């Protein structure tokens, strides 16, 4: 017998406010400590910096209150904390470079990019009232994504920076279009897979307990594989290739629940990687560096030696358990300490403990994203949120795994931490999308989503909700969601 109780929803905006204050405190304190550690004085611009970050964070908070009042309250503070820690470390590298007489303004630029990124994220939240709108642009997203991925190969536009053909020059800026392509392709995959999931999942023979797909359904995965191999071969970008293919395989699995796709996907990738490693010199060099990093011959080889990787390891090792403290290590001894190797820089100054805290922040972010995917009711939203959350986790794994020699080093950036406008922009847009979907996932049934702006909920008073009936099988789980929802659209099964 079902007990009828009023179901209360914790909206969490005030929780978010508290967590935001904590996240800002971490970022600003880190910034101040960098100055104290490196130069012995609090940076003169710490006030301006603190105010700037606070304005950025609270602007986003207010946008959420107005436009996505039910959004996940943890995502934004985690991202603000990571962004702040990254900025502090980039400022620390600036100080180290200045001490050597090099003018360095990475931190100022990164703060600018943070502002631009947050504005764009707010624009996404304000203009995109319902994430399902994006499903209409499935194939537009595919074309745009593929164009972005090949842009660096266009003569006169692409630029070979540090051996990888993954940049384009527009105006005075260098951009990594693959970062934005990641989002567009996730939208495409979600749209495509939600339409074709049944065919992909159910048709085909069973072999050795694996439900194999039909040959003609293999088309999309072969295309995705071919594109990622093309990226690898033509742009020398192992990281993007891995991220792109991993994202596709994960979303394919989400859509079909068929392990066979994962097996096929991993098999294809292994073959591609093995062939690339043996036939393409620089890819093979990456593998050699990975396996024999400390070998003197590999260490001293230039270019393509393990010098950078091993210097990163030295940095991490010198950090030890508790680190040298902000501003007191020598992260600048590692090339690209502000971008590709910012994890090594953080590991050196914050130690193993600090790095574990940062990794756990990412884990929380990814798991909140996946939680959103579980909570949201439409298949497109599930796939998109699941894919984007997994992309953040996978990117983190590829970068940190590369630096710690778990996997070969690739050229991906650490989300939110690393210096670089395109990466920051793309990841803040991902955050906006996750927040938008989580608003839907956590929105109690009966509260209007489209149409006029929703009633701003009072955070103190619980939202009165229809009574919750006994759980309907197959509906979304979770305490803070309504247990059933009548929808004419995609119902999860």
């Amino acid at each position, binding site marked *: 017998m079902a007990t009828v109780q009023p179901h209360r929803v914790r909206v969490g905006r005030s929780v978010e406010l508290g967590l935001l204050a904590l996240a800002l405190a971490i970022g600003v304190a880190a910034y101040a400590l960098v100055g104290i550690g490196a130069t012995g004085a609090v940076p003169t611009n710490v006030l301006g910096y603190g105010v700037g970050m606070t304005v950025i964070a609270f602007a986003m908070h207010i946008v959420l209150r107005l436009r996505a009042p039910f959004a996940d309250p943890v995502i934004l503070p985690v991202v603000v904390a990571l962004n702040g820690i990254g900025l502090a470390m980039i400022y620390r590298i600036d100080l180290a470079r200045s001490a050597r007489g090099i003018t360095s303004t990475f931190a100022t630029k990164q703060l600018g990019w943070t502002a631009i990124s947050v504005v764009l994220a707010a624009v996404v939240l304000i203009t995109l009232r319902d994430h399902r709108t994006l499903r209409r642009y499935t194939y537009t997203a595919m074309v745009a994504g593929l164009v972005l991925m090949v842009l660096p190969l266009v003569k006169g536009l692409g630029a070979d920076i540090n051996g990888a053909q993954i940049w384009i020059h527009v105006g005075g800026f260098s951009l990594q279009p693959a970062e934005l392509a990641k989002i567009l392709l996730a939208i495409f995959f979600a749209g495509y897979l939600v339409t074709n999931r049944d065919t992909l999942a159910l048709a085909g023979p069973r072999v050795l307990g694996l439900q194999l797909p039909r040959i003609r359904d293999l088309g999309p995965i072969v295309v995705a594989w071919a594109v990622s191999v093309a990226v690898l071969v033509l742009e020398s970008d192992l990281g993007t290739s891995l991220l792109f293919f991993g994202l596709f395989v994960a979303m394919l699995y989400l859509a079909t629940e068929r392990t066979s796709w994962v097996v096929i996907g991993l098999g294809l990738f292994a073959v591609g990687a093995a062939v690339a490693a043996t036939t393409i010199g620089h890819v093979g060099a990456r593998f050699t560096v990975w396996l024999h990093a400390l070998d003197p011959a590999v260490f001293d080889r230039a270019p393509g030696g393990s010098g950078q990787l091993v210097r990163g*390891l030295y940095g991490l090792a*010198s950090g*030890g358990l508790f680190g040298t403290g902000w501003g007191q290590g020598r992260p600048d001894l590692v090339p690209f300490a502000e971008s590709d190797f910012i994890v090594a820089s953080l590991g050196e100054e914050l130690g*193993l403990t600090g790095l574990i805290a940062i990794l756990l922040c990412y884990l929380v972010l990814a798991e909140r994203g996946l939680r959103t995917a579980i909570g949201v009711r439409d298949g497109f939203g599930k796939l998109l949120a699941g894919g984007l959350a*997994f992309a953040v*986790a996978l990117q983190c794994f590829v970068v940190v*795994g590369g630096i*710690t020699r778990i996997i070969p080093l690739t050229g991906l950036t650490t989300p939110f931490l690393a210096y670089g406008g395109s990466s920051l922009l793309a990841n803040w847009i991902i955050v906006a999308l996750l927040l938008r979907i989580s608003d839907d996932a956590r929105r109690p049934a009966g509260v209007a989503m489209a149409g006029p702006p929703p009633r701003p909920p009072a955070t103190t008073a619980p939202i009165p909700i229809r009574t919750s009936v006994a759980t309907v099988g197959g509906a979304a789980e979770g305490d803070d969601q309504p247990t059933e929802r009548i929808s004419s659209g995609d119902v999860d099964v």
Partner: protein
Amino acid sequence: MNTPLRRLATVVVVMFVVLLGGVTWVQFGQASALNNDPRNVRTLYREFGKPRGPIVVAGQAIASSTASADAFGYQRSYANGPLYSSVTGFYSVVNGTLGLEAAENDVLTGTVDSLFLQRLQDLITGKQPQGSAVELTINPAAQQAAWDALGDQRGAVVAIDPSTGAILALVSKPGYDPTTLASHDTAAAGAAYQALLAADGNPLLTKATKETYAPGSTFKLITAAAALESGSYTPDTSIPSPTVLPLPQTSATITNFGGESCGNGTDTTLADALRISCNTAFAQLGLTLGADALAAQAAKFGFDDGGLTIPMTVAKSIFPKGLNAPKTAQSAIGQFSVVATPLQMAMVSAAIANGGKLMTPYLVQTVRTANLDVVSQARPSVLSTAVSPTTAAALRDMMVGVVDNGTGTAAKISGVQVAGKTGTAQTTDQTPPHAWFTAFAPAAAPKVAVAVIVEHGGNLGNEATGGRVAAPIAKAVIEAVLGG
């Protein structure tokens, strides 16, 4: 779609667990290996960024670090650098480390295990960790006397306190100035290093401990010791001393210095043979005793031990194995392929001086923290029993004879009985011989044992003998020790 999402969430957790394992492995498991990697400049920067402990001789720092205004933080400099270069070595950003700076690095940087409590204390009180001071056994007067007496001749001097093994003087020539090598001006420091590498006489090699030479007649002390230890000989035993000793199995012969005969030309006492350093008598004695007895006796004095550290590693002195008769005869007088470090020959005298007990030589007396607490103190230990007290006393008397009215009269000091042995070691036909002298004094209650080598006869060249060139240097060092 929720089931695969949950599985994917598990996959994400697994990925992060792998990452956590990875960073733990690098930052904790491998940290020590990575930090000690010689290619890791970070370690050097960190070491330079901390005040390194001084190296102290008789209360004066001979190596110390002072704050510098550059990226490194501290500059190492050496007071009286060349004089102590054989001891300190150097500590350089560009050129690495050598000598005591290398051997005692973890003490000087304060990272040695025995300083763990100190580090813990510093961690709690928030004090910047400092390296420890290393106080040496060196007697500055003896060191200076050895340095001055060698002059511009190439060679080495080692002086030991026979009763403890404490090294009182350690000089190699030519020396070098470690301060120039430790310069933070990397170009200048690198150039200075290259110049030393190219320089004549290999100044970077600490000849006193790292170079081995044919010991020549100083080795007769070991042959005599083997004879006395066998029980068949006393200093007064008459042994054959032909003017020319034909070597068995070959047409080669052994003659005495300058072709002279010893005593009556047929036989002489063991003591007299040592006093006048009779080659034929000792070669024949070696043949009679056999190669194995000589090798065993040499080993008891410290030969063929590659593991000696003072704390710098000492080169191995070698008495070759598997010798045939003619080679045994040559080895018994310190020729053929017998080689010894100057330190080794000082140890021979020191063992005889100490009643047959060979003390382990050492250079570091005390290690103190920055606030002068004693971390460790040298504890003299017996390395081996080289000969019995009776043999030691007999050898002592025989060595006194060498200085009183034998080949080593140049080492005579009025009012002090000196016991010594000369050596003039053939090198090649073209180059003058090495001049050796090893001695201890006062003979009755020894305070110092010393070994001197002057390469290729020094200033006297072909005219040189151990007695003329090396003995006066030993005398100067003994006087410096006894005078102080």
